């Protein structure tokens, strides 16, 4: 009858298995987290330089006659004026021995193409500058930036180097003169897209993403919660409801690109909504995230103990009252978490937006949900595809911004969950 010994004998092996099993679990998490760490380090490493920008200090003469302006000139007049030569002149003054046409071109390319607009905007802000000689920190061209940041190795033989010796010599001369400085790249967060890496900013994409998410949230949250309530609390058992359920589960599995086709055919071609607009992107993404939120909300509602419903019903509350007064508030943390996960999914989505015209160059910051705009992942996609090397770091920086948003959203989800759960 007594089998203690038999069991004892088996135990050694079983405990070993137990330890192996447990370590496998630990190992799995470690692998996943390690992978994440590698990815993040890689991104941050690559992105870091993008947050710094090299500037070149030049002394410019805002000659009133040559510019054909005076301190009372109107804005359109200043807009029309040509500031490019002012900068060119400053460069020529700094490096007077440059003579050949080809060399001049290279010299002019030390400052960014945006420099003239930078100067113009300064003058618009303060027309009194006209006629003065001032020192201005101009944005450096991406090549200069790369040299200064060390992304281009100065020690390479000239043939292997993108920046040739002549240019390098100018840069080094400026450097030794203290005319090259590096500072925080605020304009990365303050301006829209550009074809020049040094001028390209993320603001347009951030605003576009926010508008898109706003539309997505305001559509999918109420609809998904309403649908979840209906299916969990009111739906009779019949074929229609079965069909709805199958559809919801299926939509959760439909590849996102197919939602793009839907958006194109239905909202743009049929309902004539504008292309490239956050409103359409938002609708498409809300249809895409709807199943996610419905499924999460349903399980949250299901988890509310029936005793709560019974308590309300027992007091003479109607079904509707018991749901809206008690079940819904109790399920809210779960619903919110589901919603934020859905939103995070929408935030990172690219494929469906390809179909509705959001893969576009949009330099102006969108002002409303019907203005053309792009979103963060698409900005990443576009920059990743640009020939200019300077976009490499911008791409990583955009990814970093996107990840920050994602992490922030997850943090909010956790916070909301804790807060609502703690309360009672």
């Amino acid at each position: 009858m007594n089998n203690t010994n038999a069991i004892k004998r088996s135990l050694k092996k079983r405990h070993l298995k137990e330890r192996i099993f447990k370590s496998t679990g630990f190992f799995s998490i470690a692998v996943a987290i390690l992978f994440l760490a590698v990815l993040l380090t890689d991104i941050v490493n690559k992105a870091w330089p993008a947050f710094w920008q090299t500037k070149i200090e030049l002394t410019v003469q805002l000659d009133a006659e040559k510019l054909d302006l005076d301190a009372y000139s109107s804005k359109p007049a200043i807009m029309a004026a040509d500031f490019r030569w002012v900068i060119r002149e400053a460069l020529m003054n700094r490096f007077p021995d440059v003579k050949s046409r080809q060399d001049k071109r290279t010299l002019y390319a030390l400052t960014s193409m945006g420099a003239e607009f930078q100067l113009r905007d300064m003058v618009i802000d303060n027309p009194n500058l006209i006629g003065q000689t001032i020192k201005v920190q101009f944005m450096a061209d991406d090549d200069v930036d790369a040299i200064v940041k060390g992304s281009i190795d100065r020690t390479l033989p000239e043939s292997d180097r993108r920046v040739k010796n002549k240019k390098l010599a100018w840069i080094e001369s400026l450097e030794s003169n203290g005319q090259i400085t590096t500072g925080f790249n605020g304009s990365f967060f303050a301006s829209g897209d550009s074809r020049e890496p040094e001028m390209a900013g993320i603001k347009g994409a951030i605003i576009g993403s926010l508008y898109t998410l706003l539309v997505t949230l305001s559509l999918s949250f109420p609809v998904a919660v309403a649908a979840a309530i209906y299916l969990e609390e009111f739906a009779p058992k019949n074929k229609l409801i079965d069909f709805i359920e199958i559809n919801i589960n299926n939509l959760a599995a439909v590849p996102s690109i197919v939602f793009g086709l839907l958006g194109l055919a239905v909202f743009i071609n049929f309902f004539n909504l504008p292309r490239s607009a956050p409103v359409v992107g938002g609708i498409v993404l809300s249809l895409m995230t709807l199943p996610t939120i419905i499924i999460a909300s349903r399980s949250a509602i299901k988890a509310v103990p029936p005793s709560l419903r019974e308590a309300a019903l027992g007091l003479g509350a109607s079904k509707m009252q018991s749901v809206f007064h008690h079940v819904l508030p109790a399920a809210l943390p779960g619903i919110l978490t589901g919603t934020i996960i859905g939103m995070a999914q929408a935030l990172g989505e690219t494929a469906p937006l390809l179909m509705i015209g959001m893969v576009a160059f949009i330099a102006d910051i969108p002002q409303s949900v019907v203005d053309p705009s792009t979103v963060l992942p698409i900005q990443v996609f576009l920059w990743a595809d640009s020939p200019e090397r300077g976009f490499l770091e911008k791409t990583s920086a955009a990814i970093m911004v996107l990840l920050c948003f994602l992490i922030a959203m997850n943090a909010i989800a956790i916070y909301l969950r804790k807060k609502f759960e703690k309360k009672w």
Partner: protein
Amino acid sequence: MVKNMNKALLSKPSGLVEQALKVNKQTTTEDALNIDYTATVGQPNCQNAKFSTQNVNVYYANNQAIHDVSLDIGAHEVIALIGPSGCGKSTYLRCLNRMNDTIDICRVEGQILLDQENIYHQKQDPVLLRARVGMVFQKPNPFPKSIYDNVAYGPRIHGLTSNKAELDELVEASLIKAGLFQEVKDRLQAPGTGLSGGQQQRLCIARTIAVQPEVILMDEPASALDPIATAKIEELINELKENFTIVIVTHSMQQAARVSQRTAYFHMGRLIEVGDTNQIFTNPAHELTEKYITGRFG
């Protein structure tokens, strides 16, 4: 005295069942319980009936849980429903305020009259019915809201008060009646779920009486509580009976004896016997009742 009585009850504690079982292993227990129980023994009717149920049958899908139960519940009486687990006490109780409506597969047949009106009549609004027939559940289930809001919930949804002052008064009165006011008066805004089990159950009772129902149904209201909390609840029931009709399900015969005037004994979905509590416990008329009360099963 007590000791002697116990001696009689238990002189050969397990002997009876054991003997019976030894004869024929597979069937004896059923045999022992295979006693006629189609008709109800006792006085199911009463004058001045608040509830009058006639030939009630309840089915869960194809499974009949209540067979042909007819029973009156008098105004301002406390009636206890007792019986072994699964005999249908809860099911019967939940017919009285149509709480069974919430269970899809549940179907109720027969007549249940509250003040002469059939509560299952089409035109009857179960919401109104439940306001008139309140319910207290086995496990205390306060809303995850403040103590005040718990009690004020019913009056609010039914619009029983017209201003804040009236509502405050009603909440206070209900808490006083439930014997909870002294303990919570300083923290009416604290969450109801933070109270102890016994306090929670009294809160649930306060919440129920705040709607001023005519009948209160209680389904094993003290089974999740410790002895002290149980005693408080029983005390409360004794006070509430002045104003309310109370139907209480309990698995404790002692509790039934302590709080009720009449007792109904259910067995496998049938009402076996009903009568004065005193009589049921001292002089049960039906063999099954007797066996149950003497602890032969259950």
